Structure formats: structure tokens, C-alpha cells
């Protein structure tokens, strides 16, 4: 699918490019030590889920988003990036088959306008695409510009996911849950909702040290940790959180099968943490293979991602093609 704004920019003098950056790793959590306050137990400990009655909601909605981007041209050394971000919610009813109930997508051009020649800038501004600018200090150096562009794409995807999720909350029927791939603490509405659950697969943030950290990261399979409240999260809202081990880590890696759940900061969350965890243990099947993150990726989330990738514009989907110089034909 040819994009008119890309063609216009190239016609205005930008040099065409087809660089595709490495795939995104998903919505990243903050990557610093922040600490946590105990909520359920005085100090972090493991709770077995054996015999726990799993929560069995009649319907569950799953939200995920994707980001796809590529450099479509250069004006001098300033990259012009075309990005596609999308988010969707798929509802799983009694028939166990997910169906899309909400969906949104956005196309972005990411560059630094002031560094573009007038003709290229004019073409871009007239192209009808939303232009997001990378910071001035990163724009002059391609090695920094592309990571900066990637950050902007991730921000756009996170914002889109948030919008889609918040819009959907009102439609959520009593007893129905919304499971979000990633944190919910960046949204006031999500972090306050009684049936919104964030499933975090990346563990860059450190909330514990010493023995508690060891307990968290060596959690046995089919166990969860005590519920805690992550601390010092800046603009992020207060939530309750706990770790859950889906698959035995022994023989693999400390983070293998380990997810962290986020739910609203409320005593009910503590009361239902085991039932929620037992429910998510059931979500281990079917496996989300062939995704490399299948040990932490829930199949319905994987399904949303598959859906979004299937509907993404073909010209931003990475494909295994040769980058040899093109022939005249």
C-alpha cells in the first residue's frame, strides 16, 4: 500500500530508505529500583495456589497493541520514520473464541522538522499524517535519532492502548474482566477499575532486594507472592501487585514463566489475589507458541497481537527480504 505522504516527501527530495529497526519488545516497564510496601504480608513470601478455587469470569476482554515502523527516507542524515501503532480488545465469551470488540490504529511520521529542507517539510506537513518530533538533542545524530524515534513510537502505542482500554471500560459488563498486556498504573481509570488486570511480562523494575528479591525470582511454579504496593512510581497511579510463576523456572531462567500482575489498590484485590492467580494459571493453555515469550504470554493476548499484525499495512510489516541493491526492473 503506497502512502501518499511518503511519496510526496520522496518527491520533494528526501532519499528513499527501507531500514526496518529491530522489533519492539513490547510496553516496557520502568527500569529502576523503586522499592515496594508490603500489603498482604509483613514481608514478601510465596503462597501456594494448590486447591485454590480459580476465578471463572463468564467473559474476559484482552487488550494488546502493536507498533511497526520503518525509516522511509532521509533528508541529509535526518531520518523520516513511518510508524503504525494499533490496539485492539478481543472479547472471549462462553464459546471460548475471541472476537474483536474494540480497535484503533494510527499512522505517524517521526522526524525533526527543523532539520528538513523546506520542500520536504512542506510536503510532510501537507501530507495529512500526524508528525511527531524527536528531541532536538537526538535529531542530528542518526545513532541517537533512531532510538529516540523508537521511544516516540512506543509512547504513541501506549497512549493508543490506554485510550482504547479506557473507552472500553464503560462497556465492560458486571463480572467481566479486562486483561491488559502491560502495566495499568499509567492510567487513572484503569488503575482504579475493580476488574482491570495488568499482566506484565518484562521485569526491568526492581521492587525488592536481598532475600525478598530472591523469594520473588525463585518463586516455585503454581505459586504467587504476597501482594505489595510498588513505591515511587512518579506519575504512575497507586496499584497493588504480585508475582505469579506460570511454569517451573528450574532448568531455564529466573524470569522463565514469571509474570507480575497489577490490579487496583483495594483490599478486595488482596482477597482475590489467589483466585485471580489460579485463573491465570488456567490461561497457560493453550500455549502461546511460537512466540518466544510464550512462557509469560497468555494465549488470548497473543491472539490479539496476531489479529493486529494480520491487519497491519503490509508496507510496514518486516519481511525477510534481501537488501541487495535493486535492479532497474
Amino acid at each position, binding site marked *: 500500500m503506497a502512502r501518499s505522504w511518503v511519496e510526496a516527501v520522496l518527491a520533494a527530495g528526501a532519499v528513499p530508505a527501507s531500514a526496518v529497526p529491530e522489533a519492539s519488545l513490547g510496553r516496557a516497564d520502568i527500569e529502576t529500583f523503586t522499592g515496594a510496601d508490603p500489603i498482604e504480608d509483613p514481608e514478601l513470601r510465596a503462597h501456594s495456589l494448590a486447591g485454590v478455587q480459580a476465578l471463572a469470569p463468564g467473559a474476559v476482554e484482552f487488550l494488546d497493541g502493536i507498533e511497526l515502523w520503518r525509516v522511509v527516507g532521509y533528508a541529509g542524515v535526518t531520518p523520516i520514520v513511518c510508524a503504525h501503532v494499533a490496539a485492539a480488545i478481543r472479547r472471549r465469551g462462553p*464459546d471460548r473464541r475471541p472476537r474483536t470488540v474494540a480497535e484503533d490504529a494510527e499512522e505517524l511520521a517521526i522526524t525533526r522538522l527543523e532539520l528538513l529542507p523546506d520542500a520536504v517539510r512542506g510536503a510532510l506537513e501537507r501530507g495529512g499524517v500526524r508528525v511527531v518530533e524527536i528531541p532536538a538533542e537526538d535529531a542530528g545524530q542518526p545513532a541517537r535519532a533512531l532510538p529516540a524515534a523508537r521511544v516516540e513510537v512506543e509512547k504513541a502505542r501506549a497512549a493508543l492502548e490506554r485510550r482504547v482500554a479506557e473507552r472500553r471500560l464503560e462497556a465492560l459488563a458486571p463480572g467481566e474482566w479486562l486483561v491488559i498486556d502491560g502495566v495499568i498504573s499509567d492510567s487513572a481509570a484503569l488503575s482504579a477499575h475493580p476488574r482491570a488486570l495488568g499482566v506484565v511480562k518484562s521485569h526491568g523494575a526492581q521492587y525488592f532486594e536481598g532475600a525478598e528479591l530472591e523469594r520473588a525470582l525463585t518463586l516455585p511454579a503454581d505459586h504467587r507472592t504476597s501482594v505489595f504496593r510498588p513505591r515511587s512510581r512518579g506519575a504512575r497511579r497507586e496499584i497493588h501487585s504480585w508475582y505469579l510463576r506460570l511454569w517451573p523456572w528450574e532448568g531455564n531462567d529466573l524470569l522463565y514463566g514469571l509474570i507480575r500482575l497489577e490490579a487496583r489498590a483495594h483490599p478486595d484485590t488482596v482477597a482475590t489475589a489467589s483466585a485471580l492467580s489460579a485463573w491465570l494459571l488456567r*490461561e497457560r493453555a*493453550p500455549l502461546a507458541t511460537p512466540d518466544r515469550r510464550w512462557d509469560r504470554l497468555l494465549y488470548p493476548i497473543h491472539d490479539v497481537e496476531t489479529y493486529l499484525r494480520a491487519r497491519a499495512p503490509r508496507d510496514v510489516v518486516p519481511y525477510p527480504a534481501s537488501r541487495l541493491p535493486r535492479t532497474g526492473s
Partner: protein
Amino acid sequence: MIERRDSAPPPIGRVVATEQKPATPHQFHFWTAKETSIGIGAIVTVEEDTGGGSDEQGLGRVVYGVVTDGFAYSDLVTPLHDVVGAEGDPARAAESPTARQEIRLWTAAVLRQRPEEPLQPVPLGRVHVATDADVAQALRMDAYLGGAEPRGIPVGLYTSGGLEAPVYLDADFLLGPEAAHLNISGVSGLATKTSAVEFLLASVFEHFPSHKGRIAAVCFNVKGPDLCFLDQAGTLDEQDLRRYDRLGVEPKAFERVRYYAPFKSDGVNLNTLRTHPDLVRAVEPLVWGLREVLDYAEVLLNRDDIDAKADAFIDFLSDRVVGREFDDGFGGTHRVVTFADLERLFRAIFDGLEGGGGRSDTWRTHHIATIRKVRNRLSNISTRAKGLVTDDGPSSDLPWGGFEDRAVYVVDVANVDPLGQDLVFARVVSKLREYLERRDLGVDAVVVFVDELNKYAPADGPDTYVKKMLLDISERGRYLGLVLFGAEQFRSQMHRRVVGNAGTIVFGRMDSDELATPGYQVLSPATKIKLATLPIGELMVRHPHFTQPIFVRFPRPAVLRGRDGVDRFPPAADLPFEDAVVRQLVKLDVRVRPNLVKDLIADRREEDVRRALALTRQARPHDAFAHFKKLLGARVSAAPMPVRESVPPLNPISDEPY
């Protein structure tokens, strides 16, 4: 005939093409929802997405296809992952909260493209379930259903997803002259083959185009009571009636059916299962004499021992002896009309040659061994097919030259010796051909239905007269209006040219071993599975206009099935000689009083009675009893039969067991 599509139904699928599975001009792949009404054999249409336009470059192309294979798979990478997800417990696999994404992917073979030129790969468009009008287009039926002289012969209903679209065969390609003949194969015992032919005959009779003239059918009943009750109405349910209505065929038994069956060896009881008193009146005896047999003597001699000498001697008998005054050269004069007359001639020849001191072993240039062989074969048929072949007396035959339009002539040879069956088949078909060539049969076309065709035209075995004749019909019959409807269990064991010349091929449920033979390699595995499990009443049809085989359903024939007929009209027990004679005379004339007949024949020789009865039957006089009495006379002196013991043993010329 065809209902037009009022509005486009919603698409049920979409064509997909990958480098591994591309769309081609002859095949494409499409996916549907998991819950779909289509299956193997379903006809679909593909419409290209053009935004409403069409042009000469093929945009706006519509493709008709028939589903030949289906695939289902999920996003499961390896079965092991399912085991892991269920923790090794199959019961838990079904309890997973989310059902895996599944696909229903179908492969379809192209039936037709519109426009037909330029022929291009199937576009990646929307897939719809075919409507009545689509089915007509897909099967190119529009070429012969419209116009001033429509030629459609309903063969069944294409059914899929609630649709019941009539499927028509082209009369020009079913009954000639463009192509002709129909071959149907399938396992035995399901009543599909016979039922299909019975329905199709009814359909042909009702829809045979008027501009093509008159048509009749000759059916050989070769086993049991299969075709013995074509004039009796069978039981139909509402579904059958609806299908008849949809196909435009009236659900009724055949109105004009004539039955022909030979006698049993007693010469008076008919050798058929249609002997119930209520039905036997419609059965005519099939009795042939010397002339009828001699014309087709090659049938009797073509097993292992046919040679030019025997052939020449038979020709000599036929041309110079039979039916005329003939001097045997030993002082005797013969007029050979019957087998008995011929036997007397043979006796005279043998006596003459042997009486001459054994100095000569030839008679009229024919060696005595040849004469003995021919005598042996001719007397053999009169023994083995006694009841069909009469030693003496008149013959009784099909109404050559007087065939009626839309009439069925059933020749019941189910209980006749195989050699006799060959003779009947050869003679009837040859006579049909002879009369059709002269255009004086009474009809313009004849459908000949032969069941168990394997027996008459096997792929291997010797080239018999019957096989050669079947080949001749297959290859040239369409120009005469002589059409062969053949049925057999194993098509692979049929002579290739016989089945190859059949323009229309029909398959019922097939045996798996049969489907594994090379002739079925063109069918997809899914189509083979469907054929192996085909229910009664469903067929797969190949026809020159159809580029792919099509599955159709046909209603049960509106006639009484053989087994039901035997239950409803149980065959009468063989009558004593006197009673059998009475019954035949009463059949000719209801005024005949049984006691008078019995008194008349009480002390007569059975041969005399049979001869008088045959002549009466042939004459069909107003007063049958009087005619019979006159023929019988005061006493019919018994002709002295040759003493067989005096005939020297035959020199074994061949290894024939008989």
C-alpha cells in the same frame, strides 16, 4: 428451469494464495468460517473485488469452482505443545479457557470462468455459495437449457447448504449424436445403480426433446426381480416428491412396459419372478427357433473353438439349408425349419457318410468333424437354454418394427444359462441396430440398459462376440440412436473403450480398493473418501459439459423396487402342465373354460400341446380355444425322434467343458 439470483448472498469465504499454494487458472484455495455449510463437492463462485467495474483485461472476473479438498488446522506449532498445555491430560486440553484459532481452508477446482478469455489465475476475491443460476453457469448448462429447442435431461439435484439446484444433462451428449452412453459404477447391494437408471429413464422419457423424435428403452434384467415391477408404483416420501417437483419429473411408474421372459424347461411356465396372477398377463414368452439362433451362432462358437470352417458350415446351413427344400445327397429331401428338422438332417448326413463304408469324411466340402462340432454346439444351446430355444414350433419375439414411444421393454434373462444370456443379448442388440439403421424400429432412439456389464465387456478375457458388439455400440451407436446405459461394480475391470466411450459417467458408493486403482487418480483424496461413503441416493456425475465431477442427489424411483415387488406380488408356484396351458390360453381369451382345455389335453403328448399352444399364441385368434383345438387335431402323431445313442461319440475338437 433455473431460478435467477435476486441479490448477492453474503460471502462465505475469501480466496487466499501463497507462493506455496498459489491460485491458478484451474485451482484456487479459500478460507471460510469454522461453521460453514459447504463441504466436498460444493459449488462456489468467486467474485473479484473491482469496485463495481469490469473491463476486457479480466477485471470483474467471476469464477465458478467445485470444492475438491478441505483442510483444518490451528496455530499449534507442534502437537507436543498441546500436550504441554494440557499437562499430558487429554481431558484438560478441552478445558483450556481459549479455543485456538482454527482455519477451514478449502481447495476448489475451477469449473468455469467468466469471461472465459483471457484465461487467468483465479482472483483473490470473495467466495459465495452458488445459487441455482450459478450452478447452471458453472456447469455450462446455459448452453442447452435455453433456446428454441432445450435439451436438458434432469439427472438430480445439486444440494449444498440448503440449496437444491437441478442439474441437467445435455440430451445430445447423453443420447447422441454428439456423444452418448452412460456408465454407472458402484458397489452392489445399495440399490443405487438400478435406482439411478430407473429414475434417469423416467427423466429421459419426460424430457426427451420433441425435435429428437421418439424413444424407447430395452432393459435386460440379469439378476433377481430388479426390473420386474417397473409398471407398479413404489412408495415415495415427501422429500422424494419435493425432489421430483424440483426436477420437473412426474413421480409415476412407467406407463408402457412390456416384459419378455423365456419359458422354463417345461415349456409352459415362464422363467421369471413376475408370475403373480395379477401381473403375469403383461409377460410375453421369449422363444426362439432355429432361424433366430442360427443367425447369431457365432455367439455360441466364439469361446475357444471358433474357426473359419465352422463359420463356413454355419453360413452354408443358414444360406442354403434353413427354410428351403434341400437334397442331402444321400437320397433324402429335407425342409429344415426347426432344431428337430436340423437334427434329422444331421442324422441323414452321418448315416450317409458312415453308410458309404467310411470312404469319405467330407460332405459338401465340409469335414465331418466340423459338422459334428456345429451340431454339438447347436444342440447344446437347445439343451442349456431350453425354454428360450425351442426344438420345434414357432418363435415369440420382441415387437421388431413396432416399438412404441416411451415404452420400456424388459427382457428377463435372470434365470437363463449364461450362454443363453449371451445369445439373448447379442440377438436383441443386433436386431435393434439393424432396425435402427433401417429407421423402421418404430422409435428414433433406444436406450439399452445392461446391468453387470463387467460380465459382458471385461477388461481382460477373450474377445467374445458380445464384447465386440458392445464395443461397436459404444463407438458407433450414437449415430444410430442406440444408446448404452451400462452398470457394473468395478469400472476398473471394464473394457477401456466401452467405458471410455460413455459420454456420461456416474459413480455411486465405491469400494476403497476400486478407488485405489489408477483410473481414480484424478480424484482428490477427499473426493475419494466422499465416494467411499456416499449415501444411497447420491451420485457423482461426469458429463462432457462439466469440467469437474459433480455430486447430485436423485429421488427414489417411482416404481416398485424388485424386493418390495416380490413381497407384494409373490411369484406364483410353477403350475402343473395342464394348469399352465390353461393359464396361457385364458391369457389369450378370457372365455376359455379350463375344464374343457384339461379334458382336451388329458391324453396328449406334451410336445404336441406345446406346439399347438405356441401356434395359437402366435396367431392370437378371436376364439383361442377353438384355434387351439383345431391345431391339436384328433391326434398329433409324434415325430420319431432320432435315437441319440446311435450317434458315434464326438471327437473332442476343443477343450470346452460342455
